[in-house]
Each structure stands twice: as C-alpha cells, then as structure tokens.
C-alpha cells in the first residue's frame, strides 16, 4: 500500500513535470502581471484608478492624446485637427475618416458628442476633469454638438484655457464610446452604464475578449485599426496580487510587465537586468487632517504635524520606487514648481512638541489615523511610530477609508493622489480649491473641502489660472498659490511625490508608463 502511494505521487510529479505549459510568454503577446482586484468596472465614464485607466486607454481612442514623454504637446488622435475661435470659447474638431469601432460602426462626431454628454450626465467619477470647465447636465447638450458626421463643436460655458480642455479630453474617462452599440444595450435609461461595466465599445487598437475579475483580462489586437495593427496580437492582464510570486514569474519569463510590486522585489529584479520604468506620477503622498476636529482646526497643531513624519528613511526603504521627497503641490518639473530640494517638513519631534505645547497641548494629542487603503498601511505605521516621539498618539484603523475621507468622516488620514490633467492646474484644483465649504455642498472631489478648510484667496487664484493662457502669468499664479497654500498651514502635508513603477522584462520595448495612467500598448514590441 505504501509503495502504491509513492508510485502514485511520483506519477503526479511526472505528469505535471512533462507538461509543456511553462514556456515564456509568446513573442506576439504581452503579459502584464497586475492587481485586477482593484478594477471596479470598465466603463470609461466611471473610472478613476490606475489599472483600469490603462485598460480603457487601449480599448478606446480619445479625441486627442498626450505622449508620456512630452506632456506639453497635445497631439491628434480621433480628432485629426481642431481650431479655436478668436474669443477662445469654441473648439471645432474634425473627426478622422476611416476609424471604426470594434463593432464595425464608423466613428462619427455624433459618437464623440454623445460621449462627452454621457460623462457629464452620469456625473460619475470620470466626469470630474471635464466638469471643471463649467459643463452641467443642463447645458451640455447644447454646448457639445455634432454639426455633421465629421465635425464636433465644443462651446465653453466660461473662459478657460483651451489647452486645459484638450488635456481633459485626452484622459481615459473621455475615451470615445460607440453610441449605437451602447444604446442597444441600455437598460432603464442607464446610458449603458451596467453593460459597459464588463463590456467594451471603443475604437482602440485592442478589443476586450474576456474579463474575469480577480483572474484575467484578455484583449485581442484589431487588424483593422485605423493606425495599423499593433505588433502585439494579444495583451493579457493576469491577476497576481502577491509581489513575491510576480517576481518569480518575471524572472522565469512568464510575465513581461509587473505592476504593484514591493520595493524589495523591484530592487532584486533591477539587479537582474529588468528595466524599471519609474512611472513618474502627478500625485502625492499626504497626511490629511480634518479641521472639523477642534484640535486640528488650530493652525499651530497643523504646523506641529508638519514635523512628525520622518520621510527621509521612508523614501529610501518601503517607499523606494513608489515616491520621492517633494513638498510642493506642483509636481516636480512643471511650470511654477520649486527647483530646490524640498524643505519645510523636516522630522523634528522636539519642535513638534514645542508647537503642540504652544497650541495648548503640553501633554500631547491622541487621534485616530486612517490609511486610505491597505497599500498605505505601512506608511501609517511609520507615521504612528515617528509621531509617538513628538507626543502624538495615533490609533490606526486599517481598511479602505477613501469614502470616509470624501465624506469628511475622519480625523487624520494618510493617502495618495493622482491626476489626469498633465498641468499644474490639475493638482492645484485638487489641493488648493474649495468653492463651497458647507457640509451639504458635498464637494468630495476637492481635498480642501474634504478637510473642511476654507481658503477663498487660493480658490480665487486657482480660478484665475484656469482662464490664463500666457505661460509667464500662469507660472506666477501657480507659484503664488503654492506659497499661499504652505502658509495656511495646509490641512494636507505633502512629503513625497508619487511614482508608479513598472518592472519590464528584458527584451520588451515600447512599454512606457504614462503619468496620467493612460499607458498605451500600441508601440510595444518584443525581440
């Protein structure tokens, strides 16, 4: 009996050992290891996360596109060309002839107009960027119109720098949707929202063939894509939530691109010759404080909190590859951003203690600390540890706390942000803008509102920068906002600028992580 058992086990080993399923990923297919658990739905209008933006950017084309290596130039995509009227209030776009959706329907100006109207009408997360320019459910139908199958006219409800509008049209949420197909799948007037959660209707170079949450997302290249067929016949996203497992699979050659990896694993792969695309992001890591808490409403307390996190070792260890030291609300290298090394938020527990005493807390403070998601837990623990030396006790409540943050239901939170507008305005409007501080305004998109801090001066300046087109004047405005923000003292303390590293296997080229997360697979090649 014992021998039979052994023989059986040996047979299993032989069978599995003889299987031919372990070849490296095929030469004409790209395999991306990622975390598919974070994808809520595939509808462009409802997305605001990284992985799903990447998927959508390859299933859908935008009217215009911004290359990852040159964020200042807006290039044509479905819109072949465009003109801006003299009063800068009307953008007229000519839609490319010959582009088709994966359904076979031709792409028309009507589809483009409907896409913009749909995003605004749905009012979901994806509308945030474009709604900034004054479009509302009531005015969008009359302002955005197709005058003929090839002409799209966008009228702006208020004076806005047209570049900003074009930037927002390049974002993943504004991927142009096949109106006919979506309306054919509409239910109870939901604008196809339910159907698009797990189906796609775009004109991009890839079409969705399979999606199983927590498992796999398969896309096939379209041979009839208007810009020619991409080199990769297939792109597969595989759910590999565990970084160590991902590392083994990249080493073995089964995965070509790895996302969401731990810094230790990235470091090891870099040493073995993998390319690390640092994935510079346009967001930050921050500590947010709610001024609805009477203690945190005191500016002295917030000033003290600027010195309770030792971010230098953090940037060199757990946050390596995920961020670099930065303390301005304008991303590094952009117009108006400081050129010097970041200063101002140095770790100084003694200074923090002194400031707290001056604020009336000689015995320190006790607060609850939310990490905005599991990914931020490590940072929260580091903060808890550092802050103790400054007399601040944090009780950490793990979980996904972004909804609490949006609803102003928190005391202190650590989180990170991203933006899809590759312009300083994109971060300024997030961090330094609050047009209505009342609870019932529910302006969850703005961080100052979330932290209940009214800053009318800054709000005015940010509004001004929206319409300004002169580069020098814009720069001056941005600098002014940044300075004013730091003087508040702000409710969000920035210590690191976000990066989203991509680990790319040797032999894979053309995969370039996009700072606004619309990474495209069209140019990817393998040799």
């Amino acid at each position, binding site marked *: 009996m014992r021998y039979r058992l052994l023989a059986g086990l040996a047979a299993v080993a032989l069978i599995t050992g003889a299987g031919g399923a372990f070849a490296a990923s095929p030469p004409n297919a790209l395999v991306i290891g990622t975390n598919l658990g974070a994808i809520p739905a595939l509808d462009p209008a409802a997305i605001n996360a990284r992985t799903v933006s990447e998927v959508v950017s390859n299933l859908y084309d935008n009217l215009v596109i911004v290359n990852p290596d040159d964020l200042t130039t807006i290039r044509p995509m479905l819109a072949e060309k465009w003109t801006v009227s003299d009063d800068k209030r009307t953008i007229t776009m000519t839609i490319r002839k010959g582009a088709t959706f994966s359904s076979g329907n031709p792409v028309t100006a009507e589809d483009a107009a409907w896409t913009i109207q749909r995003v605004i009408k749905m009012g979901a997360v994806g509308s945030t960027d474009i709604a900034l320019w004054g479009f509302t459910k009531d005015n969008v139908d009359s302002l955005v119109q197709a005058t003929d199958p090839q002409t799209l006219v966008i009228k702006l409800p208020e004076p806005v720098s047209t570049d900003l509008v074009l930037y927002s049209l390049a974002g993943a949420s504004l991927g142009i949707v096949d109106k006919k197909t979506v309306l054919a799948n509409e239910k109870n007037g939901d604008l196809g929202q339910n159907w698009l959660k797990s189906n796609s209707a775009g004109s991009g170079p890839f079409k969705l063939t399979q999606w199983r949450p927590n498992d796999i997302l398969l896309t096939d290249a379209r041979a009839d894509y208007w810009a020619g067929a991409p080199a990769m016949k297939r792109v597969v996203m595989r759910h590999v939530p*565990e970084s160590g497992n991902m590392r083994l699979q990249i080493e073995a050659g089964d995965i070509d691109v790895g996302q969401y990896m731990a810094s230790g694993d990235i470091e090891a792969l870099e040493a073995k010759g993998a390319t690390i695309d640092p994935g510079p992001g346009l967001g930050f890591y921050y500590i947010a404080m709610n001024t609805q808490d009477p203690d945190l409403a005191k500016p002295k307390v917030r000033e003290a909190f600027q010195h309770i996190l030792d971010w230098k070792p953090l940037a060199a260890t757990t946050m390596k590859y995920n961020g670099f030291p930065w303390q301005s609300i304008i991303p590094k290298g952009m117009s108006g951003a400081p050129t010097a090394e970041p200063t101002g938020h140095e770790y100084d527990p003694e200074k923090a203690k002194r400031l707290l005493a001056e604020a009336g807390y000689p015995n320190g403070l006790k607060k609850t600390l939310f990490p905005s998601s599991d990914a931020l837990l490590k940072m929260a623990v580091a903060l808890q540890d550092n802050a103790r030396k400054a007399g601040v006790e944090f009780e950490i409540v793990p979980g996904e706390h972004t909804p609490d943050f949006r609803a102003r239901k928190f005391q202190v939170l650590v989180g990170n942000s991203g933006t899809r507008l590759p312009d300083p305005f994109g971060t300024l409007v997030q961090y330094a803008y609050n047009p209505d501080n009342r609870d019932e305004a529910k302006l969850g998109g703005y961080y100052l509102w979330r932290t209940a801090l009214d800053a009318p001066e800054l709000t005015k300046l940010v509004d001004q920068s929206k319409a300004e087109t002169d580069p020098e004047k814009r720069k001056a405005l941005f600098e002014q906002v940044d300075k004013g923000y730091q003087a508040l003292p702000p409710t969000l303390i920035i210590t690191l600028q976000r990066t989203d590293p991509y680990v790319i296997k040797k032999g894979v080229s053309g995969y370039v992580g996009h700072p606004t997360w619309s990474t495209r697979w069209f140019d990817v090649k393998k040799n």
Partner: protein
Amino acid sequence: MTTYEAFNRPQRFLRLRQFSGKALSIVVTLVGLLLLTFTMGRLLPADPVLAVTGSEVDRATYERVYNELGLGEPVWKQFASYVGRMLTGDMGQSLTTGRPVAQDLLTVFPATIELALVAMLCGTLIGVPLGIVAAINRGKLIDHIARIVGLAGHSIPIFWLGLMALFVFYAKLRWVSASGRIDILNEGLVPPITGLMLLDTALQGEWDVFRDALSHIILPGAILGYYSVAYISRMTRSFMLEQLGQEYIISARAKGVSRRQMIWSHAFKNIRVQLLTVLALTFGGLLDGAVLIETVFGWPGLGQYLTRGLKMNDMNVVMGAVLLIGVVFLTINIISDKLYRILDPRTR
C-alpha cells in the same frame, strides 16, 4: 401480517418525526443564516447607496437610489423581501461587475471547491498514513518525526510556505505553473461542464489541458492540504491507538493474524467512520484557509471574490458569499451525518 404492521407503524412514525425534526432544524439554521447576512449588510459602515452611485452624487439621485434599494421600508419588510429574493436564487447584482452575484458565485465557487478537494486529497494521502505509522510506532522516533511533520505544516505561515514552494517547484525545478487556474494559451479551449477544471478536461479527453490545469492546482492544493495534515494525522493516530488497545486486536494477534491484516482489515476498518467526520470538518476549514493561498497563487476563487467585495463595499457580493459559505458548511454537516449513519449502523 397484523403483528408485522403493529410493529412497523410506530417505527415509521418515529422516522417521520426524526425527519421533520431534522428538516425543521435545517430551516431554522437557514433562516438564522439569512438573518445574520441581512444584519451584516445593515450594520457594516458602508453606505449602500454611495456604493451604488459613487460618492459624488446629488441629493435627488441619492434619494432615488435609496428608494430603489427599498431602504425606506420597515426593516421586517426589507428582511422579508431579502428572504424572498434569496429563495428564488436572486442575490442581487454585484455593484462592481454589474453581473448577478449568483452568476459570479457560479464561476468563482467551483475554483475554490476544486482547490479544497485537491487539498483534501493531499491532506488525506499524507495525514492518514502518517497517523497510522505514528500509532503503530508509538513513542518511537518515527512517531516524533510524524508529529513534527504534521505540526510544521500547521505552524509555518501558509503565505511563506506558498512562496517557498513556488521558488523551488516553479522557479527552480519548473515542475509546476505559478498563477491562476490555467495557462492563457489554453484559455477557453475546454467548455465548462461542472466548473471543476480537472474533471471537465478529463471528461472531454483534453489531456494536454488537463495536465496544464493539474500543474496549476497541484502546488496550492498540496500546500493547503499540508496545512491540514497535523489535524488529520493527530486524529488518525489517536483513533488508531484506541483500536490497537482493544481486546479484539490482542486476540487477533494471538490467533496469528498478520500485522498488515490487523492494521488494515481490523483496526482501520473500525476508525473509518470517525475519520470521515474529521475529514468533513477539515474540508470546511480548507475553504477558510483558501483565502490566503488564493492570494499567494492568484487563484480566482471565492476567497478573493469575497475580499474584493469587502474592499469595494459591494454588499451584495459580501452577503451572497457569506451565505454560500454558510450553506456549504450546513451541507457538509448533513452529508457527513448521513454517511456516518450509513457506515455505522449503531448510530442509526
């Protein structure tokens, strides 16, 4: 004839009463389970309306969805309609995937069941012989080794063990695959019948795909199974020791029955029934343990579905998955109870 009937009637009545008692207890358990999941849905801090609409929502939409979800109704009414929907198999829609939860569960649950079955097989194949060997050699070196082998599986973090096993068997030896249920090249080649990949591929004679599926499941299955070895072997050992100390064994030995015959034909036969209960309990435990192993191996099963639902505040998913787990435990209990009765006439 009359005497026979007179004898049989109360017996039949007794069985009927037993049966209805059992059925009642199942119904009560089910209602309790439904009440539990319903309360859970109400008590969790997630706002069900915001989960549907997203957080940037105007008051009118909020109220429309609030009413659509029936949240304005009295609680008992909400519970009644919840039970009604569950009885018809309508677990609502996943707010994130847009598909009915019941349909989602039908795809993720077989993956977990298959993993647990393989784990169970591995655990039994290692645990039972280990327990028997330990019992026969009680107090000797091999007994201690058996205990250490079992305990190691139980005390080493399953997460770490999974990664180490991947390193050895996937990265170094290339014997097995690393992630998911099947290779992408074989994706969609074999139409699902039962949802159990090994069974489906075998039934359709697709042996290449079968080997691929096996190479994916064998590692997570074996590790998950190893996790249960400590419990199975310890229980087997103590059942076996109890039997070996019985008089019938001693007299069988005296009569000259061979050692092998004594162990397998006499002692093992008598512990089969007890072992069955142990294995049934283990199976339930394996479903629990699958959550971690599913993460390490990117296994698209119930554990990951449930955690994702929790993270996304997708309450229909959480309630549906918890209900399913409850029903599975209930079913395992009923089946093991039934088998117990069949195999051991004394308990009838």
